[in-house]
């Protein structure tokens, strides 16, 4: 049975209207509702289903961030993870934390905990990077199955159906492997009330990037964060010729 590591990220809730800070340095996060990245919920759900099918033995949920990240770890525990690891990254370091850092952290933890599978959401809804799964696999030199919409586990390998631009691609990977969960992989369960109570007794270990030997010094500087441009009104044209002329004018054709 496989040991599974699931990465969960605390992001601004998807239903919240994002506002840019007046000084353009970032997005307003104070007092704003946060929750688990929806793709990470799908990742945890997949891990829990594997455990229910007796294909996984233990699920470890990891989150990198400030103290509040423990809330999403608790949610993961309430959904069925066995233990949590909180990698404490706060303040300035957290603002410039990038997938390159997170992937090294996840890789180190995967090695320390001797896991067979790492499952993460395909991307976070705040930065939309879509890099962590791929980089983690590269650091570990493990195969990667990204955009997974179906996962079947055999004894020492998995068969994954991936959603790609051209349609669906089915691949086989040997364990250990990194998987990134796409939208249609499963429908995450509600945390049941008894499980919320049980989750309080499950352990959450706390570590720092330094303990893991990972350097989280910034590789980027944020120059400015702005709203997308306001949508321009459309123009009604009399016929196709006028349309072609306008397109040529605008350099679109």
């Amino acid at each position, binding site marked *: 049975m496989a040991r599974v590591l699931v990465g969960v990220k605390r992001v601004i809730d998807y239903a*919240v*209207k994002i506002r840019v800070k007046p000084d353009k340095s970032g997005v307003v996060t104070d007092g704003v509702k946060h929750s688990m990245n929806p793709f990470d919920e799908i990742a945890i759900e997949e891990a829990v289903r594997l455990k229910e099918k007796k294909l996984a033995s233990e699920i470890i949920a990891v989150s990198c961030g400030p103290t509040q990240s423990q*809330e999403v770890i608790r949610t993961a525990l309430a959904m069925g993870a066995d233990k949590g690891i909180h990698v404490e990254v706060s303040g300035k370091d957290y603002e410039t934390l990038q997938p390159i850092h997170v992937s090294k952290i996840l890789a180190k933890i995967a090695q320390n905990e001797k896991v067979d599978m790492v499952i993460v959401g395909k991307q976070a809804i705040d930065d939309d990077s879509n890099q962590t799964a791929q980089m983690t696999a590269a650091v570990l030199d493990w195969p990667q199955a990204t955009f997974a919409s179906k996962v079947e586990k055999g004894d020492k390998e998995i068969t994954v159906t991936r959603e790609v631009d051209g349609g669906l691609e089915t691949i086989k990977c040997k364990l250990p492997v990194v998987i990134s969960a796409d939208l249609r992989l499963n429908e995450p369960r*509600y*945390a*049941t*009330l008894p499980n*919320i109570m049980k989750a*309080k007794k499950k352990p959450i270990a706390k570590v720092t990037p330094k303990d893991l030997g990972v350097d989280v010094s910034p590789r980027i500087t944020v120059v400015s964060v702005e709203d997308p441009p306001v949508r321009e009104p459309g123009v009604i044209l009399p016929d196709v010729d006028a349309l072609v002329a306008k397109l040529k004018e605008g350099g679109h054709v």
Partner: protein
Amino acid sequence: MAFLKTVCTTSTTLGRRALSVSCVRSTTHQNGYNFELNDTQKEYQAVARKFAREEIAPVAAHYDKANEFPHEIVKKAWTLGLNNLSIPKHCGGLEEKVFNFCLILEELSWGCTGISNAISSSGLGQSPVILAGTKEQQKKYLGRLVEEPLLTAYCVTEPGTGSDVNGVKTRAKKKGSFFGFSIFLFFDFSIFRCFNFNFPIFILFNFTISKYFDFSYNFSIFIPKENVLLGEGAGFKIAMGAFDKTRPPVACAATGIAQRCLDEATKYSLERKTFGVPIAHHQAIAFILADMAIGVETARLAWMKAAWEADNGIRNSYSASIAKSYAADVANKSASDAVQVFGGAGFNSEYPVEKLMRDAKIYHIYEGTTQIQKLVVSRSVIDSTKSVA
């Protein structure tokens, strides 16, 4: 006006709730009062909120029109543990306190009070057994509810009983080690109140009917003596004791309706335009929304206090009656105002608010009519004044 605009444009309820909760947080509450939920309560609230919005609200209109019992939803709620919150731990339940039960129920009632009643009314049938049952009685009957999605009902033996609880006519006769009496109707497993001046309470089960209160049976039943709660004559005390725990949930359900009315009305008022602007910008509508919000906030505080008192072993009849009568008024007024904000559309069953108006009315009536609540409150006021004089 500009401030009101900002308040109106934080569109989600979540945003609005955040406004009311994002006060100064202090870990040591030197002021004895505490208006903050703890982490577990926030998690419970989040699950119930999600369930209400994703499972209950979308199907509420369907069950309303079809007049069907929402078996599917009740089963789903059971898998989340929402139905059997009060069942003691030794029977496998969560043994949750009244406050947490109310917190969850308010969120579910936001979705639909018909359905939230279906989910939570099982609690009413359970409460005499939880209050007065022996450990064996509790294990035997409540344990079954935890194992399977069964329902309980709290039934009265005759249609004429209402506010006049003691005026019941049914008699129970002892026949050997059984009690026999005539009954009217019940389903799945029922706790009976058989009123008499001696006032025994029975547990009885295994009769099923297919639809809600559609037909009545009139025949005799025999109940084994070991199913009596506490003993002969204890029924009135148990029934009244149960009310102190069951009135706050009724108040919180009414608050749930009021919150839903506020949310629907606000959303609509920002979409519907008249005279070139969304109607929320007209002061008349804005003031209606403000009145609704004032009602919701204060009704919530009222049930929270009543529930807190129940959990801390403080006699809460006074607060519970205040909470229930006030929340019922708020719910009814908010529902009526919501229909008003929607205008002609509000009267139409294609929009959700007319249902809220129908649903709100019961809160003036059941679990003690508003008039009975006022009797309780006025007696309490007069007694406390007399005792000081």
